[in-house]
């Protein structure tokens, strides 16, 4: 089971490295309006999403499910576990949402403003902090 734990930690780090950087690429796409730049940015965003974020996210979810199996039953009924599950769900939804933005990258200029993307940043940061704190400290 320690192997699952190690793999879980490693894949989460890879996952969040993508989740934290992808909105930055969207902001660049928003700001750099010439065609050459946008061509590069859509390539970078595509590669980041499909080669890093997707496999790492899948791997951390599967390892996480395997790890739930090792937890004693009374831990599953505690509050921290619920908080962690909800945050994980929010992260998965955020992940899928980034995918929809990626698919509609050409339209994002009309759809959103810049503040929206800066707001997007805060979602993985907050979820990451909450998940790690409740998992390590198990405060409630």
């Amino acid at each position, binding site marked *: 089971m320690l192997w699952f734990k*190690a793999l879980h930690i490693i894949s989460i*780090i*890879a996952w969040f490295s993508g989740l934290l950087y992808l909105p930055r690429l969207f902001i660049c796409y928003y700001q750099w309006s010439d065609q*050459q*730049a946008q061509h590069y940015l859509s390539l*970078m965003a595509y590669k980041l999403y499909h080669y890093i974020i997707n496999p790492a996210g899948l791997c951390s979810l599967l390892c996480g499910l395997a790890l739930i199996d090792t937890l004693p039953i009374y831990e599953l009924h505690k509050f921290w576990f619920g908080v962690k599950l909800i945050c994980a769900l929010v992260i998965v939804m955020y992940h899928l949402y980034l995918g929809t933005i990626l698919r509609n990258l050409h339209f994002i200029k009309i759809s959103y403003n810049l503040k929206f993307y800066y707001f997007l940043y805060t979602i993985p940061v907050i979820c990451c902090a909450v998940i790690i*704190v409740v998992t*390590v*400290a*198990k405060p409630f």
Partner: protein
Amino acid sequence: MLYLKALHLIAIVFWFSGLFYLPRLFVYHTMQHSNLMQQRFIGLECQLYYYITTPGMVLTLVSGVILLLHKFPHLPYPGWLIAKIIGVLWLSGFHIYLGYLRRCFATGMNKHSEIFFRYLNEVPTLFLLLIVLLAVFHPHL
């Protein structure tokens, strides 16, 4: 102390997000030929290095040292811990090397090829594997 450990893990996530993406930016940077795009990439690299990666490293190292002093107040350290510390020192060296490469790019002095940065991109992955496995398994070394 558990909260400090949580802070340590959060800082690691930020540090590695920079370490993973900075060489990737270098790869794309070497493909750029127009002056405008080069300036844009220099800006991105500068932001990533100074606002995410370096603060991540400082927080990781500071919280790591406090955890170390708290959990292992006396020498000698176990073998896995020494191996982990050596790994972290190498990783910090890699971080500083990335900073040097970033400066080379910013001053237009980069001599390395795209292939070089593609290989460089795999270095933090190796360190991550090594360090996390040591920290989780605590093997007898």
